[in-house]
Structures are given as C-alpha cells and as structure tokens.
C-alpha cells in the first residue's frame, strides 16, 4: 500500500496549494483498495471490475445458485423425482387433493397426480418461456431504444409511433391473436415466446430510449465525438453502460409477468396445453378449488416466486456492480 501520492508527479513544482488536490479516493486499507493495489498492473475495465465485484456479493452468489438449480431442474427433471408425471399410472383419482405424505412430498392435485413431480417437470416450460421472452424483449427493445434515442429526429419519431401501435393492443388479446393465427405451424412454446416478445419489447424500448436521451446530452459524449468516435463506439461504449441499469430492473421484473402471462394464454387455449406441464397451467388448474385445496396452487406459485426473486436479485446485483460508485 505504499503508493506514491499524486504529489510525486511533476505537478509538484506547481505550488504549495497542491495539498488541496490530494487524492479524494477512499482511504487506503479498505478492502476494495487493496484489491486494486494488487492488480494494479492488470488493465481493468467496467466489465472485469463488475465481475470481480459480483463474485464477492452474497446476493449474487445465492441468486446464481438458485438459478442454476432451476436450470438443472429444467434440463434433467428426472434427477429430482423418480415419478414420471406424464405416466397416467402414477395418478390416482381416488386420492385427489390428498395432503403431503410419504412418497408424495407436496401431496396430490385435482386429478390425483403427484404435485411434486409435476412442479419439477413444469419448470422447463415456464423457465424457457420466461427467460427467452425476457432476453428477446431486452435485445429487441434495447437495440431499437439505443438506436432511436441516439439518432433522434425522424428515426426516433417513426420508431416511437410504431411502439405506440403495439402499446395500443391489449397484451393478452394481442398474444391470443398472434398465437392462434400461427397455431399449428410452430411449437406451442415457441409461439408463446414469440407472441409475448412481439408485445413486450416496446416497454423495454421506451425505457432504453429515455435513458439514452438522458445520457447522450452529457459532456462525455461530446468529448467522445470530439475525439472522432463513431456512432457504434458512442452507442455501445458510452451510452449502453450508462443506460443499462433501468432496463435490467424492468427486464427481470417482467420475467415473472411473462411466466404468468403464459398461464393466461394456456387458459385461453393457446400456449402450453395439458398433458404438457407448466407452472402457469398448474396455477390456472388449481385456482377453482383454492379454498378447499390450496396446496396445488401454492407449490407452483412458490416455485414461480422463487424463480422471479432469484432473477430480480441477480439483476439488482448486476446493476449495482455496473455502477462504480456503488462498489
């Protein structure tokens, strides 16, 4: 920690008032500083620093562990349960809505099938729909938003009017229309993702555009232009990192909305259909008998909440890590 102070530079001859310009950086000895001192020789950038920071955030580690478990559950559900919920022989109608007991950890649903196995197997469809829709809307909305916000003028006006058309369509009705028109041509999961993405990107677009417009008026963008930076560099090196925070927050919150929207579409007859399983479908099925048998609704809803929470926590951690002031 024996860094020379900035006063050791040739600036020293400038006068006695140099002391007033002493480093405003945090006092040496703090953990963050020690890390910098050790890695002084290695070039740092926003992303590598963010990664170093994330690895030490408990919130990030916990959320990533949860997400990894959920992903394993989605890919290999048989690792978690020996019961195959697609096998009708595992269901026992006479034991419908039975409470938790040996062999049936969560009890049985309205048709007497094992609730635990169904919840585990439901993860795949729900997570695929939630994550892919979130990623797709973030990419489409984000790219359009950054481009329209930076360019402004006619391009911005045109893009904004187009998104207003999408905003005017009621989302469930619109998704229903898209999914039912294209039904049969594509896999039903793909259709749900497509329908939700087409209607979901304008929200990300608006947030990105607003953040970019705020960022682009700042002097550092002017400075980059004066250096001769091209549009690509300004958009992706300067504007994107300074506009990403709000998009991350909205995108992760929307993830849960998309999983729930899938349930609404299933209920209306498009999207995932029985005997296929998804959390949304399970919640919709269990809704009618919630008063007498709450568990068939509670368990998939609990898994859904944990998934959404994990993604929101991860999003928050990433957002904080990308802000050097919060490190």
């Amino acid at each position, binding site marked *: 920690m024996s860094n020379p102070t900035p006063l050791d530079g040739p600036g020293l001859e400038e*006068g006695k008032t140099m002391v007033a310009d002493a480093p405003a950086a945090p006092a040496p000895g703090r953990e963050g500083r020690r890390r910098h001192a050790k890695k002084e020789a290695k070039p740092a950038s926003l992303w590598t620093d963010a990664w170093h920071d994330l690895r030490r955030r408990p919130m990030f580690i916990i959320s990533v562990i949860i997400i990894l478990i959920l992903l394993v559950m989605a890919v290999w559900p048989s690792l978690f349960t020996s019961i195959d919920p697609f096998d009708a022989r595992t269901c026992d109608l006479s034991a419908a809505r039975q409470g938790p007991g040996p062999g049936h950890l969560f009890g049985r649903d309205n048709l007497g099938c094992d609730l635990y196995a169904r919840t585990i197997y439901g993860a795949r469809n729900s997570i695929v729909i939630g994550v892919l829709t979130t990623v797709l809307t973030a990419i489409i909305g984000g790219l359009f938003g950054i481009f329209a916000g930076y360019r402004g003028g006619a391009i911005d006006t045109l893009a904004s009017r187009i998104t207003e058309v999408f905003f005017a369509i009621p989302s469930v009705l619109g998704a229903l229309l898209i999914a039912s028109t294209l039904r049969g041509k594509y896999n039903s999961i793909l259709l749900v993702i497509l329908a939700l993405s087409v209607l979901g990107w304008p929200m990300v677009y608006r947030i990105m555009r607003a953040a970019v417009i705020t960022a682009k008026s700042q002097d550092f963008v*002017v400075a980059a232009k*004066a250096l001769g930076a091209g549009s690509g560099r300004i958009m992706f090196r300067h504007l994107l990192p300074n506009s990403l925070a709000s998009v991350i927050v909205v995108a992760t919150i929307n993830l849960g909305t998309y999983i729930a929207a899938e349930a609404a579409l299933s209920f209306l007859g498009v999207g995932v259909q029985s005997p296929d399983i998804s959390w949304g479908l399970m919640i919709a099925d269990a809704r009618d008998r919630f008063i007498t048998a709450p568990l068939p609704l509670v368990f998939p809803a609990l898994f859904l909440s944990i998934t959404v929470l994990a993604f929101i926590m991860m999003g928050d951690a990433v957002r904080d890590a990308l802000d050097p002031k919060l490190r």
Partner: protein
Amino acid sequence: MASGSEPVLEVRDLVKHFPLTQGILYKKQIGAIKAVDGVSFDLRKGETLGIVGESGCGKSTLAKVLMALEQPTSGSVRIGGRDISKARGGELKRMRRNIQMVMQDPYTSLNPRMTVGDIIGEPFEIHTDVAPKGDRRKKVQELLEVVGLNPDHINRYPHQFSGGQRQRIGIARGLALQPEVIVCDEPVSALDVSIQAQVINLLGRLQDEFGLAYIFIAHDLSVVRHISDRVGVMYLGKFVELGKDAEIYDRPAHPYTQALLSAVPVPDPEGREQRERIILQGDPPSPANPPSGCRFRTRCWKAQEICAKEEPLLQIRPGTAHMSACHFAETHDVVHAG
C-alpha cells in the same frame, strides 16, 4: 511563447446561426439565433488566445464550431491549411488529432463507467495507428504522470478523484493525440479558486513542454489575462476588440471592454474606492434580433447616430495599437484609473 511562425489555426468570417422554426409538420424558419456572426482570427503555434465575454455571447458555440462538433453556417476553420468544417469521414477523423478540447465541467465530461485508463486510452483506440496496442497502457501512464497524477491510479474510476484531478484527466485525454491546438472551454470555472491556479499552471507548463496553442474561453478576466498572449472580447457573436493581453487590459479601446474591466474585483480596498466603475444599463439584446449597426450601441454611453447606421469593423483605429470595433474607439485605462 508566441512566435511569428505560420498560424496553426485560421478562422475566417465564421458564422453560426441556429434556425428558429415554427410549425409541427412543415417547419418554417422564422428567424435565427445569431450565436456566432462573423469571427476571424489566427492562432500561431504555442500561442494562447483568450476569449472573454458575458454569458450567451457565443463563446461556447464558437468552441463547438472550431471542434467541428457543429457545422458553421458559413466561413472556414483551417487547421494546418485545411478546412475542418468541410472535412468528412476519415479526413475529419485525422484532422481531429490536431485539435482537441478540455471541457468545462469535470463531473460530466468523464464517463462515470469507464476507468481512467479507458478514458485516457480512448483516443488511442479510436486512432489505432497513433500507438500500437501493447504500448497504449504505458502511454496512458505517461500521460497521467505528465498531468501530475499518480500513474498507478489507472484502474480507478472518475468518482474517486476530486474536481481538480478530474480536470487533469480531461487534459490528459486532450493531450493523448498530441494535438497542435487545444480548445479550453471554461476549463476552470467549475473548480475551486485554489484548484483553478493549479490547473492554469499545468496548462501553462504543458504549453511550454509540447508547444501547444490554446483557445482559452472564460468569463473570468483575471484568469484569461494570466494565461493569454492575446485576448479577444466577444459581444453578441462578434469580436469587439482583439489584441495583446497588455493592450486589452491596460489600454482598452472599446467601451464594452472598458465596462467589463471596470467590473473586475480589485483586491485592494484603497484602490477600490478610487477607481472608476462603468455600469452598463439594460440587458444584452437578443441574438435572434441584434441591433442595427453596432451591436453594443443600445447599452453604450458613446452611441451616436452613426452607430445605428454603420457597423463598425474590427480594425486598428487611430490612437490605438490593436483592433477594435467602435467608431469612437479611444484607449482608456480603466483598471489603473483613479
């Protein structure tokens, strides 16, 4: 420092009008803000031209046009003999190496999400042939040292520095491409008085070291006097007086310059009582609709009929050794009067 060498920057009849439009679909131009309206000057190697004037007189617009961040309405900005305002694409990018800027606000002019190394290294990334990839980091550390910062702080972020240190980072970024001209747009007005002197001294030292020419824009007359070889006084988009710093400060010929100088605070209570104060009446007129003839006539105590009819040109006038734009130019030492 100023020598009689070739000018590095030649500005001729530079005009920048911002159109005022009306209507939503069909935009009709109903007028123009005449932010810069016919400015000409030369800047030699190693020279500092100070530009002073009150808020809204077009100083910052002039800086933006010089930097080719705004297109001039007419006129030319020649750097090394070529007009930067007409350059495009690769040529413009190459020309930018010769003119860089230091911005006013050190808190917004540095990207908060880039490390100091990335900020100062960005010029090398944009102009890839200036420094080979392996050398860039070393170059950035050299630049940090040149501006009096610790080269080990290369991985820090702007918010970990004080205002004065940030301004040094901004200066290092401007120096990276080894330009001939640096436009300083109020580089110290956002800083504490104690820090101002350090940054000014740093700029002076760098000028001696690298033979830089500065355009130094400020509204603080004493700061401009300290660093400038020549001073231009701007009023409503035009130069009203242009000359060596001693000429402008000790023998101002234009009434506006005299009024400006009479407002400079005098740190001596005795002298303060004795000196003359010229208090201008009214506000500056709108640059969208400047007065006819001399733009200063509406607030000038010397104004006559001719001032409304004939626009006074910026030229050397009888009884003065430098250029001024007043029909009744007359040297008058305001600062030492009394």
